[in-house]
């Protein structure tokens, strides 16, 4: 089974909120290996977390 970009980004987002099941992690990893767009989306979602934390750290 192959994930679409829509499904992959949904799981990448959930991976920031819960621990993904082993099968989900494998499917995401396979998709990311060949999909530049989803790798960027993952990096950017992780960056959002850092940015929002930095938002409250500032005076």
């Amino acid at each position, binding site marked *: 089974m192959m994930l*679409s970009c829509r499904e992959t980004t949904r799981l990448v987002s959930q991976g920031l909120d819960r621990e993904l099941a082993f099968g989900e992690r494998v499917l995401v990893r396979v998709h990311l290996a060949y999909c530049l767009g989803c790798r960027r989306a993952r990096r950017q*979602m992780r960056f*959002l977390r850092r940015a929002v934390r930095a*938002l409250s750290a500032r005076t």
Partner: protein
Amino acid sequence: MPPPADFRSQIEALRPYLLRFATLQLRDAAAAEDAVQEALLAALAGEAGFAGRANLRTWLTGILKHKIVDAVRRQAREPALPPETEDGLPDFDALFETNGHWAERPAPWGDPDGALEQQQFFRALEMCLERLPARTAQAFMMREHLGLDTPEICKELEVTPTHCWVMLYRARMTLRECLQQTWFGKQ
């Protein structure tokens, strides 16, 4: 015994910071004022709890977080709160083709951490947050700003975990898109 004046003035000096923090989260000036006021009163009453701790701001922020969660809980119970609409959220059908692949592949963001050094960037981020629908923004901010976990957020907002994840996913995808348009696409 009333708290010494210097403790009180130190706390007062942090009010603007706390107000900003609460406003980001609650999106309602009056509710934010109330939460900060409650937090400051609790801090003055509990000065002993601060004794020996390193950072007054961190301690106050911790108290304020609880007050914010109380406020969110009250808002969630308000029957007047309009049901969440899809306004302001990207049309997911436009982001992806019918087969689920990107309609337009996300562009690289260059040096995003460099943006964290820039005041202007945070202004753009706040504008993007303000554009999110209220409940979606609240779920996102509870997760990323207050650092609550999803079971807590679901409980406070009275939604199912699945709905919670959907809101967080939408928030992230919308913010990505918004920052692409208002910041990274312009660099």
